[in-house]
């Protein structure tokens, strides 16, 4: 059951990222065709933008994010339980212990960052520590550890870089309309007018569509991290309980930075109405339901692995 979910989530993510790549390539190509009469030039521009942003976020991304939420290192002396739980989950996932940070914020939340498992950090808010018991905290940390294990931070960054490239390239095109690029294109437009129309529509709706795909990928990774967390702790119910507590707490978060949104265990600023297409996270009730379903089939879940314990 739990392995099935992990497999399914991985497959969905792969499909989504393929769709995303093809889509960005198509958009860049069409922009190239319209703007320079050569699709390849558009592709090259898109590529260039992607590489520049990739390099900068690869090397400095985690530091910038931790700074932007004012995270402080959590010492073993002052935060014994938190550090202990992180070590336990690092052992369970077979990775090195990530750096542990604390954010002074009364809303309960947590996130992981870092480009690969060797350079990773987990940050939790003060509010989370105060509200959850040990098992629930373990569930949340397992969720974050799963993000690290699955290299989700890299994954999410890659996708958002692609989205960024699409947005920039298509805005280059739209700007060019004002400078007569469109006329030039029109003069030698013969035959492929249907293709031209499709291309134009694609470019116009590209930023919106790529955003929707990005959010779908992000939600997929959340489900994956949930089921992987269940596998690490063998206690899906604790994570479900933690999510219940987190979702029932109505403390306004002081973290005001949408850029870090996809990283958190629950969205800091989700409003109830905009939950579907533009959400980085699946609805929390759905996540709880899936986790509880795993808890009920625990006998099955334990088969082969835990039974050997």
């Amino acid at each position: 059951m739990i392995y099935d979910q992990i497999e399914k989530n991985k497959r969905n993510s792969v499909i989504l990222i393929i769709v995303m790549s093809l889509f960005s390539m198509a958009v860049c190509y069409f922009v190239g065709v319209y703007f320079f009469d050569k699709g390849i030039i558009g592709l090259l521009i898109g590529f260039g933008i992607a590489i520049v942003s990739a390099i900068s976020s690869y090397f400095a991304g985690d530091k910038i994010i931790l700074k932007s939420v004012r995270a402080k290192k959590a010492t073993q002396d002052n935060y014994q339980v938190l550090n202990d739980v992180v070590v336990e989950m690092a052992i369970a996932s077979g990775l090195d212990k990530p750096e542990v940070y604390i954010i002074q914020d009364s809303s309960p939340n947590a996130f992981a960052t870092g480009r690969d498992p060797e350079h990773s950090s987990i940050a939790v808010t003060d509010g989370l520590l105060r509200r959850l018991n040990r098992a629930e905290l373990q569930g949340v940390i397992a969720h974050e550890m799963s993000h690290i294990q699955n290299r989700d931070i890299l994954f999410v960054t890659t996708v958002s870089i692609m989205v960024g490239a699409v947005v920039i390239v298509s805005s280059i095109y739209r700007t060019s309309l004002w400078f007569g690029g469109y006329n030039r294109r029109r003069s030698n437009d013969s035959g492929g007018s249907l293709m031209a129309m499709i291309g134009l529509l694609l470019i116009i709706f590209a930023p919106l569509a790529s955003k929707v795909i990005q959010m779908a990928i992000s939600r997929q990774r959340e489900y994956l991290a949930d089921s992987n967390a269940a596998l690490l702790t063998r206690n899906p119910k604790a994570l479900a309980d933690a999510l219940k507590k987190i979702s029932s707490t109505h403390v306004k978060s002081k973290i005001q930075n949408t850029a870090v949104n996809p990283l958190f265990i629950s969205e800091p600023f989700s409003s109830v109405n905009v939950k579907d297409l533009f959400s980085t996270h699946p609805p929390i009730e759905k996540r709880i339901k899936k986790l509880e379903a795993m808890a009920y089939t625990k006998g099955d879940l334990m088969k082969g692995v835990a039974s050997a314990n």
Partner: protein
Amino acid sequence: MMWIILGVLAVLVIFVWSTYNKLIRLKNRIQNSWAQINVELKRRYDLIPNLVNAVKGYMKYEKETLEAVIQARNTCISSSSVASQGKAENVLTGALRQLFAVAEKYPDLKSNENLMKMQEELTNTENRIAFSRQFYNDIVLKFNEEIMLFPRNIVASIFGFKKQDYFEVEIEKVSNAPKVDLNFEA
């Protein structure tokens, strides 16, 4: 025709190569995580003297409980066979639970920060042991699956990879843990 044969050969070589490397990698991880379990077990043995020292001043009338813990720990360390260590580990876990249950009776002790810290440390240690076992068994499961499933099983049998045992089947002795000498009159 020539090229087809060469192509098939190349595919075969790549397959055998990658399978062999994958199995070796998994095998190394099994060994590594096995060592990890022993590290955690030793950690528990080292922790117990500290724990007993922290509480013995308060628990003068619970000599038996404390002695049971020490006894169980020493049995663990000195046990020579796989089965006996497994049993001793269970006895030790039980004795520790008993100790914390008894500690509930002593209000001074219950609110003792030192003991609370110690309790967290012990929970942590127990969890570390459990999770390192779990990780070990997970990798063994993966390894066994790899060498049993077609077509990798052919490569595995050529190079003589053998099924690995789960933790419960094979327990290695952790040696060199320090001896505790308890003096209750202190």
